[in-house]
């Protein structure tokens, strides 16, 4: 593992997690209201606070990306080659996603604008977020001389990270929200009925999060052998990449993601079926799962950079 790759790994993983969390929040909104028959007020009560965390993680990601730059003072120049450079597109879409997300969060917070307007804005934000992940993928996919990058596995892996971390981040944030509420309510000795309602919605959401996690884990364990097979049949540069992607750190990454998304995912699914008095054990399991997967994905992403061996000289 190469520490010099960390800024880019942190940036790409956090930005993708932000997009994923926004998408998952959208899915929770839609499903809870249509299938679950919940009120907009109740769903908003739970999802609105998470929007702030999504913004914070995006800002943190951008801050990390600046550490990769040789001359961050010139950072604004990266928008000068739009239309040619995927990196320009990435930053432009990242800023657009952040700005639209901020606008949406403000409208939600102050309950300004009609519901339809806010929904439309959220949809546009989600599409811009997905475009951001696509542009990020294209940066690496378009480097023709790097066999480890210019494969279909790059966009698939980025999308997997987006959905997996987004889902687990939302799950963790929901548990954090309910714990904070519980503490506040306990102080005021009120709102127990509201609390039970919220907990019911959260447990249903967590089952979904667990299902998504296990599915994404399956994708990772499908992509990995296929990509290694592809690389090991390629030229010397590709074979060298394959060695990085099957070393001890890579195994560590797979184990962490398996423990977090797989094993913990099963626990979450099982625990979340019971509406328990004390949500703390469930909160612990969810946040540990999130932590394991986050670390696993960060290791995986640094290896993604390390695996870049080029054709040529």
């Amino acid at each position: 593992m190469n520490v010099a790759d960390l800024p880019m790994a942190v940036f790409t993983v956090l930005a993708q997690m932000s997009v994923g969390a926004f998408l998952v929040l959208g899915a929770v909104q839609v499903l809870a209201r249509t299938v679950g028959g919940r009120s907009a007020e109740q769903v908003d009560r739970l999802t609105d606070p998470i929007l702030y965390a999504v913004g914070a993680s995006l800002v943190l990601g951008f801050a990390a990306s600046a550490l990769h730059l040789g001359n961050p003072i010139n950072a604004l120049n990266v928008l000068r080659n739009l239309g040619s450079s995927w990196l320009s597109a990435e930053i432009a879409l990242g800023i657009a996603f952040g700005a639209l997300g901020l606008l949406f969060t403000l409208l939600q917070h102050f309950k300004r604008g009609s519901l339809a307007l806010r929904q439309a804005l959220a949809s546009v934000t989600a599409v811009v977020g997905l475009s951001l992940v696509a542009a990020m993928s294209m940066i690496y996919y378009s480097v023709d001389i790097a066999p480890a990058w210019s494969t279909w596995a790059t966009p698939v892996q980025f999308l997997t990270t987006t959905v997996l971390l987004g889902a687990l981040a939302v799950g963790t944030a929901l548990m954090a929200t309910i714990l904070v509420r519980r503490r506040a309510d306990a102080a005021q000795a009120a709102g127990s009925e509201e609390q039970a309602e919220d907990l019911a919605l959260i447990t249903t959401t967590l089952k979904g999060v667990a299902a998504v996690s296990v599915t994404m884990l399956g994708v990772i364990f499908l992509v990995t052998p296929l990509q290694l097979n592809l690389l090991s049949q390629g030229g010397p540069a590709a074979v060298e990449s394959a060695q990085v992607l099957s070393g001890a750190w890579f195994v560590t990454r797979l184990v962490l993601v398996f423990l977090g998304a797989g094993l913990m995912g099963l626990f979450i699914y099982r625990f979340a079926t019971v509406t328990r008095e004390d949500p703390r054990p469930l909160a612990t399991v969810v946040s540990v799962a999130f932590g394991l997967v986050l670390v696993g994905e960060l290791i995986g992403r640094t290896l993604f950079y390390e695996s870049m061996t080029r054709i040529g000289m």
Partner: protein
Amino acid sequence: MSERLGFYFDQTRCTGCKACQIACKDTNDLPVGVLWRRVAEYAGGSWRTHGRTFSPQVFAYYVSMACNHCDDPVCTEVCPTTAMHRDDDGVIVVDEELCVGCRYCEWSCPYSAPQFDADAGHMTKCDLCADERAEGREPACVLACPSRALDWGPIDELRAAHGDIDAVEPLPDGSVVQPNLVIKPHRDAEPVGAGRGSIANPEEV
């Protein structure tokens, strides 16, 4: 746009002495870790069979490589800041005032022409010795070669004199970036993509 300038490399003459690399480094005052011209040793081998006898069949040759100021440069395409651009005389250069040091060009160039100066925080690269040319002198690498394996000039003239081969192993196929480069291949030069050898001095390039 003036006529495209490029390099000619006579591989049959190169002895791998690296005088070009050092002359470049000296003339352009490059810091440790930055090489605008590099000399790779490409080596490999297999066995030749005569009846029941096996004898080694080995090859080793040198590739001296700087920037080929490509017609379809990937570095200018990917550069987010437009710092990497084609100058008035057709040579690809970095505008240090614009460069953010993201190193995307470094990832993309198959010749490793863009080189990162960590202390300065921006990319640097061969400008075909712009300062020397302004004074009417030739690029330092061309002048320094003791076996006169390097030349430079309008690419059309170089191609008319030496043909149009622009790649042998370990260089990539030239069709993608259209390098302004002419190579006279070594007797044992391997075709692009053959993959039978490896760069024997990776720590030097």
